[in-house]
């Protein structure tokens, strides 16, 4: 698969992570290219979140290599991941309800003008960013509490984009959303691809995955269990891989156990 045109922005090989007696990830390979949306799917406990957290610098993997733009990197903290250009939108969004959209977007990285905050520049920049995403936010000066779920997701994603990342990871971006709002967020993910970002989406919703992803990576019980191009696969095939009806046994599994 590595033969396709652009080299991956982010690639991981042989990543393993163990929590006590549980082998959460064993020998997992994963990669994502610029301008590509990769859906990471799998049943509960398959290791999706553990993998995302390894990329985001939240959990350190026990073994394996991570390459960013072809160079091997060590991601030791969330801040380090952000500095590399990896932005993560967590499921709980982490927005301050009492602050308005502009304040939330620039939280922690405000534009200042002397000792004071430069609200005008921040508001202008917010509109530019939200327009670019064709985001439907009626006003950036209303508190985030008054936004709909989809709009809150939009703000969280826009916030992730402020740091000019190369990789954006979205954890269950449509989990709590209604039909129209889901549509809005899926459209937004498409526009991230148009911006030539590498996008990783965790989702349980197969319809959404088929609608938005280019490639689907299936994890099962902490191992790779198949990789599909959305164009040449079906929901049934992916569901089969998730549930284990189809097993893509990786050939190098048994020795990995012995090495620990």
């Amino acid at each position, binding site marked *: 698969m590595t033969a396709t045109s652009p080299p991956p922005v982010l690639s991981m090989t042989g990543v393993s992570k163990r929590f006590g007696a549980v082998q959460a990830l064993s020998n997992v390979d994963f990669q994502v290219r610029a301008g590509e949306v990769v859906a990471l799917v799998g049943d509960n406990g398959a290791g999706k979140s553990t993998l995302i957290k390894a990329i985001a610098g939240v959990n350190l993997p026990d073994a394996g290599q991570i390459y960013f733009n072809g160079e091997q990197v060590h991601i030791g903290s*969330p*801040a380090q991941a952000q500095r590399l250009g990896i932005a993560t939108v*967590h499921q*709980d969004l*982490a*927005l*301050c*309800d*009492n*602050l308005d959209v502009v*304040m*939330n977007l620039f*939280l*922690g*990285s*405000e534009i*200042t003008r002397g*000792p*004071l*905050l430069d*609200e*005008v*520049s921040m*508001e*202008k920049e917010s*509109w*530019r960013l939200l*327009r*670019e995403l064709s985001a*439907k*936010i*009626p*006003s*950036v*000066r*209303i*508190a*985030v*509490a*008054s936004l709909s779920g989809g709009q809150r997701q939009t703000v969280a994603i826009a916030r992730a984009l402020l740091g000019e990342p190369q990789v954006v990871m979205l954890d269950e971006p449509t989990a709590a959303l209604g039909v129209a709002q889901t549509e809005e967020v899926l459209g937004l993910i498409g526009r991230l691809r148009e911006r030539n970002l590498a996008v990783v989406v965790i989702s349980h919703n197969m319809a959404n995955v088929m609608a938005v992803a280019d490639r689907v990576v299936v994890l099962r019980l902490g191992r790779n269990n198949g990789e599909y191009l959305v164009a040449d696969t079906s929901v049934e095939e992916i569901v089969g891989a998730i549930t284990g009806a189809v097993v893509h046994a990786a050939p190098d599994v048994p020795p990995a156990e012995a090495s620990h």
Partner: protein
Amino acid sequence: MSTTKPARTAPGELPPAGPPADLLDERLIAQQGLSGWLRSEGLRLRTGDIGSLPVIIGLVIIWVIFAVLNPAFVSAQNLVNLAIQLVPIGTLALGIVFVLLLGQIDLSAGSVAGVAAAVVAVTFVNMGFPLVLAILAAILSGSLIGLVYGLVFNRFGVPSFIITLAGLLAFLGVQLLVLGNEGTVNVPFNSPLVQFANGTFLPPVVSYVLVVLAAVAVLLSGMQLNRRRASADLSTVPLAVVVVRALFLAAILAAATFVLSQDRGVPLMFVLFVVVIAIMDLTIKRTRWGRDIMAVGGNVEAARRAGINVKAVYLSVFVTCSTFAALGGVLLAARLAAANQSTGTGDVNLNAIAAAVIGGTSLFGGRGSAYSALLGIVVIQSISNGLDLLNLDSSIRFIITGLVTLLAVIIDSTTRRRRAQAGRA
């Protein structure tokens, strides 16, 4: 006049003409012009974003009642007294506003004020320190106490309620210790400290000049903001609104100056208190530190993930609160020309907290402003002063102050619900 369109040089993703960039969404109920502004302000109030309106209404009711019961309440002399009386506890309340914005509490502000009063009196009178040094020592002792609170809070995660409850007792002990056996240290009445708090008033001319300066500052900053917003292609406030705001402020300040100048004049201490409040309001609303405080008060986890050093925010706010409490203690000693064992005890502490809450700072964190300390303390001190004039027992005063505080908390909780329903934070 306010929608002048500057030449657009931005990389043109926007249509070249039409409403400002922030009013493009067709779902936004755009309100333009003076009447539109008034309509949207009316809507803001109805949907629970009431700001300080209930306090101001409450204050008017309180003043009318007291004025009817005893006309001396609204005499120039009594109002000057009121303006002096409210400053020390108002300063404590200002510190309390900061911890409340974080969703924390400080129950020990009164004890810290007592310690500071004792320190300034003992070092200045008994030990012969220069006055400036004595004041500095008192204020720094407050900062140090706040530092201890912050460190304990960050290190052990003990609720601030408990830490400051312990501090309330412990620093009452320190206060007694510093005062020594006599228990009272009188500060000479002719010392600059006591003179500042009791005998320094602005001549009417100076007061009026300050009023004009304040109004001009509001006018110019409003116009400058409009200019910058217009050149950034954002909506602007109608010029009429900016002018009316400045004139309104000027009218209120001039009326207050006129009344107070019928007696001794505007107390310098009161003017400085208002200036400090204005600076703190700017600090909370328009600086990084203030924004960090609001973020931590709103959602600690979000603030942490945004890269804000949450522990540093907690530490700095506990230090700020205790420092203001100490400053208030110095002013208490100055106003009473003495520090004794009861300075800062009794209802001082609870009045400071009540003032912050009555003024509109939420107990739940993330909502409020520095001005709530001013508004709240005017209410509290008016009640206290008015009941004194009626020769009512302090038992009645406690009961009434308690009920007013309860009312303020009820308003806080109900407007919070209404805001949530109307989709405002």
